[in-house]
């Protein structure tokens, strides 16, 4: 019987096989890491090792790439990824204060996940919704025109929904 993990690995292997056929196969590394993160939610070390082996790319290089780009999560993320936009428009409209409140409320720093694995707090560069500044992206959905208070209300609501 196949476990879920095996299935994910099979999908990744398949993807790598496809990428290996491309010219300059090594250049597909970032795409493969995207694929892995799509499957696993983050980049587990053994998955990166599997990519090293599968693509014949030194693991130190893969680790270097994965840790260079902020989009890649090196640790498991929470149910909700909260990406607070700190682009200029949002910043000017008080995103900094919202961030402080969220840090305090969640008791985590940027890049960390709450102990209950519910929230991961992240900073985003411009999300391109400046008209709604300040904005917060929760997984794929954008919430706009936030204040520190309304943000906390939103987090409360998400917490309730999760239960």
């Amino acid at each position, binding site marked *: 019987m196949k476990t879920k993990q095996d299935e994910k690995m099979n999908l990744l292997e398949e993807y790598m096989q496809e990428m290996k056929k491309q010219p300059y196969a090594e250049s597909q590394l970032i795409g493969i890491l995207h694929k892995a993160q799509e499957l696993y939610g983050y980049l587990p070390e053994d998955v990166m090792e599997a990519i090293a082996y599968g693509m014949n790319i030194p693991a130190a290089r893969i680790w270097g790439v994965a840790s260079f780009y902020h989009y890649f999560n090196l640790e498991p993320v929470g149910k909700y990824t909260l990406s607070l936009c700190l682009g200029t428009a949002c910043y000017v409209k008080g995103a900094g204060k919202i961030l402080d409140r969220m840090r305090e409320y969640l008791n985590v720093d940027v890049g960390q996940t709450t102990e209950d694995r519910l929230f991961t707090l992240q900073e985003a560069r411009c*999300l*391109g*919704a*400046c*008209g*709604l500044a300040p904005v917060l992206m929760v997984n794929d959905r*954008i919430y*706009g025109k936030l204040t520190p208070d309304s943000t906390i209300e939103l987090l409360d609501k998400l917490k309730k929904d999760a239960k």
Partner: protein
Amino acid sequence: MKNPLEIIKVKRAEAINRILGRGYFSTKRVYVGMATCEIAAGSADVMEIFQTAIKNGLVDVYLSQKGCAGRCNLEPTVEVIEEGKIPVKYGLVDAGRAHEIIERHLKKGEVIEEWVIQ
């Protein structure tokens, strides 16, 4: 053999035919902004309301999505275009406004002045 310019002319004619086939010559054409920023402001719901209205019998309306024209603080935006008239651009269209635009503008032809982007 045709040269690329001749080919493109054929292709364009075909494309226009297909657009017409989709009902472009309806009396009213409605364009809903569907860029990331518009969607973030709630345009997906607005789009759905128009789609539902058409499914439920709203006729003579051609509905399409469009990109962002750049009017950020007034998104979501919706245009209602009628041949021979100045196109009407609505701003800050939420579900309530979408329903009213259907009832008043699309069905009765009334331009809802206070929501129009000038």
